[in-house]
């Protein structure tokens, strides 16, 4: 889905899922449970709420820790993944999911100072 990767993908958490249905988003969360088929798994955000992530192909690797998922929000609030990154826990500074959530809230509370849309279309 080349088109999805060209548009701006706002970073969101679970409470913002409903406002982004049908849109491309970027979701960072901690992997909770992986479905035995490997085609879907649940993630929790910095507020502790959970969301479901679906993949096109089943997982080929062990998934744990914090992941960054880029995909689209379906009408049922499920993220259909285009691509994902694992933020490795054994490298660099440990990721602070709660702090990330605070930053997320700031970005959404003051959109006038974070004009990501403009930057993407530019």
């Amino acid at each position, binding site marked *: 889905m080349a088109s999805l990767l060209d548009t701006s993908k706002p970073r969101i958490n679970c409470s913002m899922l409903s406002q982004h249905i049908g849109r491309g988003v970027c979701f960072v969360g901690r992997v909770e449970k992986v479905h035995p088929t490997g085609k879907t798994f649940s993630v929790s955000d910095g507020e502790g709420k959970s969301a479901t992530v679906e993949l096109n192909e089943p997982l080929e690797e062990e998934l744990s820790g914090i992941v960054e998922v880029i995909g689209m929000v379906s009408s049922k609030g499920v993220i259909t993944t285009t691509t994902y990154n694992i933020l490795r826990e054994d490298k660099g*500074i440990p990721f*602070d999911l709660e*702090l990330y959530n*605070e*930053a997320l809230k*700031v970005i959404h*509370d*003051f959109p006038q100072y974070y004009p990501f849309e403009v930057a993407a279309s530019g």
Partner: protein
Amino acid sequence: MTKLSEGTIEALSNGTGVSDAVLQLVNIRKLDGGNGPSRFRVMMSDGRHTLSSFMLSTQLNHMAEENILAPNCICNLKRHVTNILKDGRRVVIILEIDVIKPAKDVAGRIGDPTPYTEGQSKGPQSAPVPENRPPLQPQNRNEVNRGLNRDFGKKAPSVMPNTPGGSSKVVPIASLNPYQSKWTIRARVTNKSSIRTWSNSRGDGKLFSMEIVDESGEIRVTGFNQEVDKFYSLIEAGKVYYISKGSLKLANKQYTSVKNDYEMTLNGESTIIPCEDSCDVPMVQCDFVSIGDLENRDKDAIVDVIGVCKSVDDISRLTTKSNREVSKRTLSLMDMSGKVVTVTLWGEEAEKFDGSSQPVVAIKGAKLSDFGGRSLSASFSSTLMINPDIPEAYKLRGWYDKEGHAMDGQSLTEVKGGSGGGNTNWKSLSDVKTEHLGHGDKADYYTCVATIVFLRKENCLYQACPSQDCNKKVVDQQNGMFRCEKCDKEFPNFKYRLILSANIADYGDNQWVTCFQESAEAILGQNAAYLGQLKDSNEAAFDEVFQHANFNTFVFRNRVKLETYNDESRIKATVMDVKPVDHKEYSKRLILNIRKLAANH
């Protein structure tokens, strides 16, 4: 049409108390004060009579100068006092007045008032006050005042009532001025200094000073020589006294935060008598400055502050230049501005201070200094109050228990060796310029997050004395020997040391800084000796070190000071410390600042 309070003029002229009278200002005239502040003489009308013997108290001069008080305006006379001149005439001093209808909204004179003359109506005449009053008898005084207190209740005294006994009235401190000498005030001593002696070519003498306060204001009082002997042991701080017949003169505002245009000197005629009934006299008069505002005040200013003591350090002992040992203690004070300042206590106050349970601390007359940015010191003339019984203290307590206790607060005082969160003086590079950091007498220190945008690799290394503790530049004797002037020795070698000139920048501004050995090595990622070697042997590799170091972001702790070389003044910034950015801490701080900014909108 606004109704005036008819009968007020008559009442005032008879010495009967009035409160909240609606009067029309007929005329206002400026009297040249000579050396002192101007005085404004006012004529007021109550619709029935006019009276021209009103004087505006000097603290209200601005109302006249700004034309708030102008002919025809309608006013509410809230507080005043009546003084009796030597010839028996009355002067009404206006202490507090509100303009309820400005002059431009009033068509003209209301009613047809005629000038009031004594004896015009049947009001009770006051007995003219005798010229030479004997010193006050404590007995009369107390009875009289207890009677008065019953009448007043706890209302703010708007008028000093006339006592049938004929003994002198008590006037408010705010009404004291050099033009009237026969007055008595009732005030509490908030601060008494120790006896100071001096000896110079003109002779020697001694003095003491104190600050006194009543419901209307405060004033500084000084006694010299004989008055020291007469009064010093009699006076106790915290107690209330009747004081009369001191001399008033213009105040020297440099050494005190007392709010009064005048100050008082005790003389041979002055009397001071203890007052038994003192519950109405306030404990202290303070004009608190918000801690957040302290940055805007000049260093060495004397201010009153109040805040919650967030934390207190242990007592330390220092030896002064005169070899005296003195105790010292620092505490951090926070108020509703969210800012924290370090306060230093000395001597007995330091020893007695109990900072447990985070008390509300108020300091009157604290000295502001630019040490570490901004900090406060309780000097010998400051008054320290713990959990004072004043409304500001209750407000602070309520705020702190609800929100304040959870805040880290941003400190105005930089603590040596401390970084992160509470005690660092974080600034952006544009802040440094707009706040003119470094322009004072002492250097300023600040911490910032900035990116290196330029490194000067030319002349960044110099040859220094190889001795352990000496870093002086050595002179190349050209014979294989290097001479150090400081050590007065010659050496066959030297050590390379770094002085790196760099330009650092953030989103708002940039700053040229000088980095010495440690910080330069941290930035370049190599030690001076190795760099020296590279410079001499492999210039390409040497250049690459600088390329590599460019555009890295660090947390810089810098020192700025205005330096003057041959008539030219320039700000010099030195890097004291360089650290990698702690992104977590940085994010947290930014989020906190954003939220604070949003909340204050």
